[in-house]
């Protein structure tokens, strides 16, 4: 799963030569063996390395605060989102929905690695949401639809159809 994500990220970044990854442990943590230096372990570590390699530092955030926000969400993805249970999903979506109320992207006014990571992380949640729930978490749905349409971003993940449904007039919380 993580390897496919890294491969997708490589494509988005336009990296010409795909890297060879290995995994370690039961959780299949990705490992990138660099030619010089120690191996890079962990999805976040490897991803940040790829971003630097492709010379797109803006993807890691703009300014100190921006960079901190990006890192915060990268960590959120790996610690809270991945492996979350069905019960926790609702709470997570609520949190994301209120966070995204006044934001187009997770950090700042441009797409960052935080958006990419959160997109991959929330895809399985979004796929399972009913139409009514997608209306309920309208900000998450809006952000998700936006990110999945970013050129060069979506590779192996199926597109999630987002249609405003005129039937549901449920209160949203």
């Amino acid at each position, binding site marked *: 799963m993580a390897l496919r994500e890294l491969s997708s990220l490589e494509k988005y970044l336009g990296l010409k030569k795909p890297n060879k990854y290995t995994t370690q442990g039961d959780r299949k943590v990705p490992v990138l063996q660099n030619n010089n230096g120690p191996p890079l372990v962990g999805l976040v570590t490897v991803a940040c390395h790829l971003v630097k390699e492709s010379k797109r530092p803006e993807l890691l955030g703009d300014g100190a605060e921006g960079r901190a926000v990006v890192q915060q969400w990268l960590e959120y993805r790996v610690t809270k989102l991945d492996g979350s249970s069905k019960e926790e999903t609702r709470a997570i979506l609520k949190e994301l929905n209120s966070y995204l109320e006044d934001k187009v992207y997770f950090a700042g006014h441009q797409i960052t690695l935080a958006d990419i990571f959160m997109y991959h992380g929330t895809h399985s949640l979004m796929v399972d949401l009913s139409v009514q729930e997608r209306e309920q978490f*309208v900000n998450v749905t809006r952000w998700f639809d936006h990110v999945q349409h970013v050129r060069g971003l979506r590779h192996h993940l199926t597109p999630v159809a987002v249609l405003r449904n005129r039937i549901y007039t449920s209160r949203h919380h």
Partner: protein
Amino acid sequence: MGDMSTQAGLKSLNNFLADKSYIEGFSASQADVAVFEAIPVSPPSNLCHLLRWYNHAKSFYPQRSNLPVSKSQYVIPNHTQNIPNPTQNNLGCSNDEDDDLDLFGSDDEDEEAEKIKQQRLAEYAARKAKKPALIAKSSILLDVKPWDDETDMVKMEECVRSVEMEGLLWGQSKLVPVGYGIKKLQIGCVVEDDKVGTDMLEEAITAFEDYVQSVDVAAFNKI
């Protein structure tokens, strides 16, 4: 352009932007610039989708000259023209408000789809009007017999085919031997029933007295 100076106009725009990051499509365009310039002041915080979009548009406004043109003649959703039920509450953002999700808000894509649908219906109606009513046609096979075996069958066929009538279309022909070296010309045609009858054809063909001895209908099929 809708009225951005009215509360209603802003409310409807807010509703429009609930599920969109940009006015048009999934990236910034001149449409965003146009709408941004039409809004006099920063929108109030209760129109949270509009405020979100507004702040975002403000961030890329300095680069507006680099943004692509908008695809359609962008019309701001006007509360009188687009929302079918204007009494319905709009999308409120704070959790205190007892708002219903207004999903009857204007939907630009729907408008376009409706336009295209009307266009197509008009085209279809025009085509239907031009299309002629079902015409009754028949396929007739004629046997044209010469006087003798010395009759020039090629000339005879030419004569037959020279018969022109409205609603008559000549088809394939072949020469069929009938004995004593005589061949008859078997020629098919398609006629419109109300325009051409077999007696008309027979009369026209037997007019070529030099070549044609008689004409018979070998086969007659309604198409």
